[in-house]
């Protein structure tokens, strides 16, 4: 239903300020009204009113009514210009500073968790190196007086080769990298800038003896001579000067695939960096050429079985006897008990890799076969044994016919 319009009479009868209207007449006549304080003054922003007299002044900086000085809001234009200028100038200054600054040189030992993601310079000796040409990765262990750290790049080996600065073990280097600390992978240095690796020095090795190696030789290049005590196995060999042993690290990722053949009793001269570890001292050669045959007059004593005791543990000895029993291993190979008339001793373990390479090895299973063995005295479950370590150290002298 449409709304009814009020008729003319009823409309005129209603006056805005009449007694029936409910509205109050204004306090002042219109002529005396204050022009500056309008009916809607409360809607006006404070900034447009004079704080002294309350009149509307708009954009004036000085009130035309009372003369008060009006504080204006800060222009945003200034801030805009500050932000643009500050950004550009600041970035330029940062860039200039960044191109001039050299990442701080730190000691490896001072690195802690808060150094994570920091770019630093370290200086030290390369004590280990692993190259993977297929993947393009390079991994170095760099050591200084305070500690050592692994430095690696997963793909920059070609770049290093192109620049000709692939360091060798023993080289003193200075490099820039980013520290990465992880609870699983430990602390490492990310070699993300191949051109920042400088080979400072390839020091000449110092000739010394295995028994004279000391803590001052750690991380230094040395040349030692000795006799092979344990031939290469699991990337390591052991040489000796009959007083002390020295582990020789033969990682193909460092020295290449051409690892020289080392047989027990042979003399060798090894050049490399000495590091200290749980096995005592280890020497890490830079390449296969750093291992050369050497005429070393170190003889292996031939001993009667009865003379071998727990005091000889670790000694290199030579024994001769006849086979008594053979104990086969499930995985192949076995151990042989021999006797020389003075006593019995176990020759082993002859793992399948050793046993299979002994000529006429079936004769070892036959009682009465005479054999000569060079090896290291060890013990297993309280029983002494002589471990040959390689097939070359087991010689079948004369097979005896069974009666």
């Amino acid at each position: 239903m449409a709304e009814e319009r009020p008729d003319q009479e009823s409309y005129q009868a209603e006056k805005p300020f009449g007694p029936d209207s409910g509205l109050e007449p204004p306090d002042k006549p219109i002529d005396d009204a204050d022009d500056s304080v309008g009916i809607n003054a409360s809607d006006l922003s404070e900034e447009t009113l004079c704080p002294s007299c309350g009149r509307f002044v708009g954009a004036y900086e000085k009130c035309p009514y009372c003369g008060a000085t009006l504080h204006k809001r800060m222009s945003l234009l200034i801030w805009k210009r500050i932000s643009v200028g500050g950004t550009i100038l600041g970035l330029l200054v940062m860039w200039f500073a960044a191109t001039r600054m050299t990442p701080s040189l730190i000691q490896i030992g001072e690195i802690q968790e808060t150094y994570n993601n920091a770019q630093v310079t370290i200086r030290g000796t390369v004590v280990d190196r692993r190259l993977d040409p297929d993947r393009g990765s390079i991994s170095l262990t760099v050591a200084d007086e305070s500690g050592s750290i692994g430095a690696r790049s997963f793909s920059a080996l070609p770049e290093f080769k192109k620049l000709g600065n692939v360091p060798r073990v023993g080289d003193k280097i200075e490099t820039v990298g980013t520290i990465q600390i992880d609870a699983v992978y430990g602390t490492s240095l990310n070699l993300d800038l191949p051109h920042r690796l400088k080979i400072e020095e390839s020091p000449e090795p110092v000739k010394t003896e295995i028994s004279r190696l000391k803590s001052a030789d750690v991380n230094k290049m040395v040349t030692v001579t000795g006799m092979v005590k344990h031939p290469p196995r699991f990337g390591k060999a052991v040489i000796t000067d009959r007083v002390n042993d020295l582990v020789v690290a033969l990682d193909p990722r460092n020295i290449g695939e051409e690892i020289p053949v080392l047989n027990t009793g042979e003399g060798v001269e090894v050049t490399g960096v000495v590091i200290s570890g749980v096995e005592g001292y280890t020497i890490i050669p830079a390449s296969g050429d750093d291992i050369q045959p050497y005429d070393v007059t170190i003889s292996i004593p031939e001993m009667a079985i009865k003379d071998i005791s727990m005091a000889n543990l670790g000694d290199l000895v030579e024994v001769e006897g006849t086979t008594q029993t053979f104990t086969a291993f499930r995985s192949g190979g076995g151990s042989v008990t021999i006797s020389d008339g003075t006593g019995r001793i176990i020759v082993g373990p002859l793992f399948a890799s050793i046993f299979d390479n002994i000529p006429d090895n079936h004769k070892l299973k036959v009682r009465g076969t005479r054999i000569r063995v060079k090896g290291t005295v060890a013990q297993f479950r309280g029983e002494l044994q002589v471990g040959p370590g390689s097939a070359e150290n087991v010689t079948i002298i004369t097979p005896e016919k069974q009666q």
Partner: protein
Amino acid sequence: MENWIVILLYALAGTVLGGFLFVIPSIHFLNFSGVVIALWGHYHGLFPIHQPLTLFAFFMGMVVSFGIMNTIPSMFLGAPDESAVFVVLPGAKYMLQGKGYEGAMLTGLGGLLGIFFLAIFTPFFFFALPKLHVILGPHMHWILALIIVYMLMSEWPKGTGKGDTWWEKFKGAWANLFAGIVTFVLSAFMGFIIFNRTMVPVKMGFQGLLPVFVGLFAVSSLISAILSKQKIPKQHVGNDIDLDYKTMWKGWMPGCIGGTLAAYLPGVTGGIGGLIAGHACAQRDDRIFVMSQGVSKVVYYTGQFLLFFVPSYFFLKGGLKRGGMAINLSPFYKPVLLQEYFFIFGIVIMAGCISFLLLSFNSKWIIKLIAKVPYQKLSYASLAIVVVMVFFMPAMIEGTVNGAVLLSGLQVIGVMCVSTCLGLLPIFYHCRRSNCMAVIIVPICISMSGYGPGLAKLLGLG
């Protein structure tokens, strides 16, 4: 797991502390984690060495409470972090309508729904994520490049293009966009410098981005709040909110998508994830938008840190590190057991529920506070706190105050000043603040593509 009660107490402590701490504008859990780690370096009793999970539980409580609680400074005090930049405008609308409390609770409800999303989909993370990572991992750089292109292009068209001359029309149409592109480019340049040079003291390397982010988002927001002199009308605190289940669902979905994207992709933050998701779902209701941003923030922060706990044996190359918190804590411990993952997840649920309750409580007293104290004064106080924290961060890490350390503090403040100027650009020129995220997303993209060293050399940073 030994002494799980102790671990739970640490989680509770982190949640409650975060619940009150993150009400202060511009305090970010990453900044605070730097302070805590620095203090722990000097006071080892803070967290038991033999129970490294206490550290993680404490920070997980903080992360969850931050995801929900940072609504308060964003909405009531106009100081958003990078994940909340998109909440501010609709949030400001709620404030001007006197519905600030309702807006905050809407965002908080979104956060709670985000945690429920994580609860439902967690079992799939173990199996889907490693396989997804194998497929997507090698392609991450161009995925990020696409996101960069999207970030820039999704701001178009903008401006009315009205004017008398062609120049005025051109300027009208392109001024804001140009400002956005300039902000993006300058942020990327700054990020490249930061990623290739440690501009903070070496001992502070783990907080190398601290001054940058504080300047870009925190200090610039506070300056903006100080300059604005906006008057906030009286706020109404109601007992219910204007929401139905359909709207809730519409807000939940885009937030979950955005938050998951942000949690998984490196360099992509909650704000960008929310932007993508918001466009993908194309909803127009402010309630949906505000809620989706709340979901996105919590899924992003919590999901990122939670990914760190996905047992590493599910991944081919070890665990997945996403986000500053995982990176900051990875030197200390790497969770490996499935049991640890579920325990931490229980902490997430507990922290989320407690934080939601604290949000209601804190919103009410903040509303009373801003009614009595002009928020410019609060902004001044927050600015002072933030500047002091940044200045003294090297001293906290070093454990001493001397000339060299104070000089380092000035160095850090200098970087913060530059990033503050950069962060003010989008505020004054009305472009997206998410463009500032180019500071991490562009360097990461370039680095992943393999062009990082080359570009660094070109710029003299190699």
